[in-house]
């Protein structure tokens, strides 16, 4: 067992595709929430294989894409501060803010370093005691525990020159917002497997109840995705709305206990603006007040002014909510490419625009 190739067996894939086609009496609309799933679906061509019976709408689960411009702005601002180093995930660097990206800032006076994990940023702080190291923390519940661990490590090691610019987001509140929207076309959801690995899926029961839509907790390999889609289509055909875990090798009802405990110690839930979208009630995590010493926003008295997005031709908000497909954006593939991205969804490894560019660009017209 390698837990990879077993889930790419063409026999299973063909069988599952056939089964979904057989049972579908109409074309259903299903949203895969996570950008990692979007990439996997397009890479394997599952979206095309099922196009007659399932329309897959790509969800907002691209953490880099939804990180608000104000977070990028604050990070750039801090990187220009004397004796300050901003550390973040490599994916974040090329994301355009309102006034350029972190990479642009790095080319100028900004002191910015890409790290593999927030714990690496703690190590940077230890090695450079004369510098303030600020970690720009982005991502869903999947990356939040690492940020929490980094803070606990810093506290235990008495590292005082480390802090966090916290821009973590929570996925379920965004799903609720989409499902409740008047324009919503989604009939069933593939919930993000790795978020549920950490959080568990108990909370989703309320969602299913409230919106009467099937939700399948789904993994990332072709077989995983097809099993999730088959489950949702089966329920839709039978007019059922249940919550089901289609990723049991990685997801347990209560998630990862240690990770949840660690996060509860560090974070409070807060309202957060998602880029291209609106302020999402309970859509983000912030540091609890007892960890204020590690909160870069407080430490450096950053304004929490909710920066308005500068209007550009980038339609990332519509892409992130599944309102349009990336190829419907007029900039797609001409002004906007992975080399010259106008918006975060074209930069990120989880962005839908990048996925379309990579896997669908040849036959886009």
């Amino acid at each position, binding site marked *: *067992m*390698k*837990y*990879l190739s*077993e889930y*790419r*067996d*063409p*026999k*299973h*894939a*063909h*069988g*599952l*595709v056939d089964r979904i086609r057989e049972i579908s009496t109409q074309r259903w609309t299903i949203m895969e929430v996570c*950008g*990692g799933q979007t*990439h996997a679906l397009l*890479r*394997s*061509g*599952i979206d*095309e*294989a099922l196009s007659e019976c399932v329309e897959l709408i790509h969800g907002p689960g691209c*953490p880099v894409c939804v990180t608000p411009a104000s977070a990028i702005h604050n990070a750039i601002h801090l990187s220009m501060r004397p004796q300050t180093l901003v550390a973040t*995930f*490599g*994916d*974040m660097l090329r994301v355009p803010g309102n006034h350029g990206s972190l990479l642009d800032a790095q080319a100028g006076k900004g002191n910015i370093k*890409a*790290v*593999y*994990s927030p*714990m*690496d940023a703690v190590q940077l702080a230890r090695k450079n005691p004369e510098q303030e190291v600020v970690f720009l923390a982005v991502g869903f519940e*999947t990356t939040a*525990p*690492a940020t929490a*661990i980094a803070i*606990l490590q810093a506290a*235990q090691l008495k590292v005082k020159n480390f802090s966090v610019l916290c821009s973590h987001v929570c996925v379920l509140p965004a799903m609720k917002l989409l499902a409740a929207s008047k324009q919503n076309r989604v009939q069933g959801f593939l919930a993000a*497997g*790795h978020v549920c*690995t*950490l959080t568990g899926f108990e909370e989703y029961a309320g969602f299913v109840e409230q919106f009467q839509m099937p939700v399948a907790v789904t993994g*990332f390999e*072709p*077989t995983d995705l097809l*099993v999730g889609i088959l489950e949702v289509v089966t329920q839709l055909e039978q007019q059922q709305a249940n919550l089901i875990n289609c990723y*049991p*090798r*990685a*997801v*347990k009802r209560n998630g*990862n206990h*240690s*990770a949840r405990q*660690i996060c509860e110690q560090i974070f409070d839930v807060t309202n957060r603006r998602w880029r291209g979208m609106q302020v999402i009630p309970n859509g983000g995590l912030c540091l609890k007040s007892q960890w204020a010493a590690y909160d870069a926003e407080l430490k450096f008295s950053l304004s929490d002014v909710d920066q308005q997005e500068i209007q550009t031709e980038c339609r990332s908000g519509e892409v992130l909510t599944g309102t349009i497909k990336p190829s419907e954006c007029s900039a797609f593939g001409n002004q906007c490419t992975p080399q010259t991205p106008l918006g975060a969804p074209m930069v990120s*490894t*989880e962005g839908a625009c990048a996925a379309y560019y990579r896997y669908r660009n040849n036959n886009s017209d």
Partner: protein
Amino acid sequence: MAAWQQGNWQSGLHEHCKPTGAGEKTTMCLGVPGKVVGWIDRTPLFSKAEIEFEGVRKVCHMACVEDAEIGDYVIVHAGMAICRIDTQAALLQLDTLQRLFNSTGET
């Protein structure tokens, strides 16, 4: 012809997400299964292990999966193990799929 028809599922990892031995990869989304091949540090909160991904070894943080044992598979996301893979659950699901789809078309 689409990848699914050719049975040509490329790697599930994004090209630039593939862990490298160099430790220079800084992309955040991984979500990849790997095998625990050795513990480096078992201090709570600071625990680290060496994980092997398709032949490539990488040091990962283990603070959320401290009970993993050598030989276990874990899923690593952004440099940190987020769970131990449940072998039983995996086998059960694969078994169902085999029964459903492996026999058909071969008789």
